[in-house]
């Protein structure tokens, strides 16, 4: 964790100079408890459209719980989540997906009973005809759109560096490739907001840098990204803004440089000096 203070991380001037977009996600006084234990407490922050916004914090800080609250996997005990101006607190994940929010998972959630390409094609679900009768009788319009979805999925897999796995069974793919497959699947739904839960966990340095590039490219195409990651080099390198959590509460927020030099953040990571 000493990366927080390494001198090579100069202020990200590009991030400071860029124009701040309108808010796409607002979290207001959000809280969630599990059997009396507060996982997230009175948390408020805003994510600007177009940003790569990282959430950092030590293990158990509530990062994944926050993701689950924002994406509707958990229902909040209090407070609310506003997405694109609408209150979406506790809304089912599939409805949020239709509004343009998707995510990946810290612990892989791959459809291991399908091929890699089919995994990504499931990501096209919202853009395809998913009714029963056209499927049973194979309507020509459905077949045509399905072929387009297949081409699109191949393109997305190529974009994230999985071209050679197009025909592979998901169950036969290595861990690093599955991490990217989750990103490709989420992108296939054409989200406005993409939440990435530790996309670099378990990857080696080279693979992490490749994920860096993928994330930057996705952001450059106008997708807002919320990133939870322990790889501080990645976080400091690509984030426009960072929110630091500890014990389910906000510790600090700002540009990577501001957060890295914040004494509370350093204390939370390294242990408080008396």
């Amino acid at each position, binding site marked *: 964790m000493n990366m927080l203070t390494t001198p090579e991380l100069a202020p990200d001037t590009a991030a400071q100079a860029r124009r701040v977009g309108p808010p796409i996600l607002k979290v207001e006084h959000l809280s969630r408890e599990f059997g009396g234990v507060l996982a997230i407490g009175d948390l408020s922050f805003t994510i600007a459209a177009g940003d790569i916004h990282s959430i950092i914090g030590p293990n158990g800080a509530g990062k994944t719980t926050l993701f689950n609250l924002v994406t509707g996997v958990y229902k909040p005990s209090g407070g609310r989540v506003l997405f694109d101006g609408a209150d979406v607190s506790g809304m089912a994940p599939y409805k949020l997906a239709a509004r343009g929010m*998707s995510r990946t998972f810290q612990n892989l959630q*791959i459809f291991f*009973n399908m091929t890699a390409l089919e995994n990504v094609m499931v990501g096209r679900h919202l853009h395809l005809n998913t009714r029963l009768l056209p499927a049973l009788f194979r309507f020509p319009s459905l077949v045509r759109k399905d072929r387009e979805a297949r081409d699109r999925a191949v393109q997305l897999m190529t974009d994230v560096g999985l071209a050679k796995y197009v025909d592979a069974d998901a169950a036969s793919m290595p861990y690093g490739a599955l991490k990217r497959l989750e990103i490709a*699947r989420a992108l296939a739904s054409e989200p406005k907001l993409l939440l990435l839960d530790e996309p670099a966990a378990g990857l080696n340095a080279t693979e992490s840098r490749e994920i860096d590039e993928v994330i930057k490219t996705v952001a450059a195409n106008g997708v807002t990204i919320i990133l939870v990651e322990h790889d501080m080099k990645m976080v400091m390198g690509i984030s426009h803004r960072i929110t630091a959590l500890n014990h389910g509460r906000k510790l600090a927020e700002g540009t990577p440089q501001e957060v890295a030099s914040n004494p509370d953040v350093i204390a939370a990571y390294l242990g408080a000096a008396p």
Partner: protein
Amino acid sequence: MNALLHGRLTGLLVMGAVIAILPAFLPNNFYLDIAILAGFNAMVCVGLNLLIGYAGQISLGHAGFFGIGAYASGVLAGTYGWPPILALLAGAVFVGVLAFAVAKPILRLKGHYLAMATLGIGIIVSIVLRTESGITGGPDGMMVDPFKIFGVELYGEKVWYWVVGALLVGVVWLSLNLIDSPMGRALRAVHGSEVAAEVVGVDTARFKVMVFVLSAVFASVAGSLFAHYAGLITPAKADFFKSIELVTMVVFGGMASTFGAVVGAVVLTLLPQALTVFQDYQQIVLGGILMATMVFMPKGLLPTLAALLPARRRA
């Protein structure tokens, strides 16, 4: 075998060819009768496989839906004199509505709980059929008139063999189409990871209900036709043991494989007949074969055999 598992049209053609030439090797109506029964079982199993094999849900009550279809035809076409096709459709609609009504609450259950809930439905249906003897004839069952459509009466094994064969090809075709569609992928995604399916927009509850209703309707239609073919239906066709038999066929043949479901249904319909040579030990030998298959071929008969072949490609 390759084509059987993965090629859409090739598999259908192979199956159609087998159905077409099979009667030449069947010496008499006794064998035709077994083939027809295998065909009915296969139709139900193809539908049940959509639910169990592809969507990853369990039902221990599908014989109940088969039974409702059978008795709807028996009662409406027989007692009330409806045209058989209308009775069949009425049964299918009733089963569809019933399956929808029970699926909503029970498909929120998982694993053992879902198994118990579907088991309950099957048992309730079976009890109603046994006790409402004024309508159903009770445990002795009821006679059903032959199927008539456009003035043509379907009668005898030779006619029914072709009817069931053609319908089975149709049902398999529908199943293959469905699986290779956006809805089919959504169903398989529900099996793979519900939460991952949800975050890309799949309303998992809706798809679970839809596939449950669809597989129940397949069972109902097969039940209606079976009633007309057999001419006599009893509550035993709707009971718990029949439900277990259907699930066993799906698992034995190979889950998440449409042709696997057909093979499972055919093999497990034939096997008890073939094993009669063991006389008193017939059940023991059957049980032994089932256990050995599951131990040595946990993925089921067809996928295991297909995997043995080299250069396996997906269609």
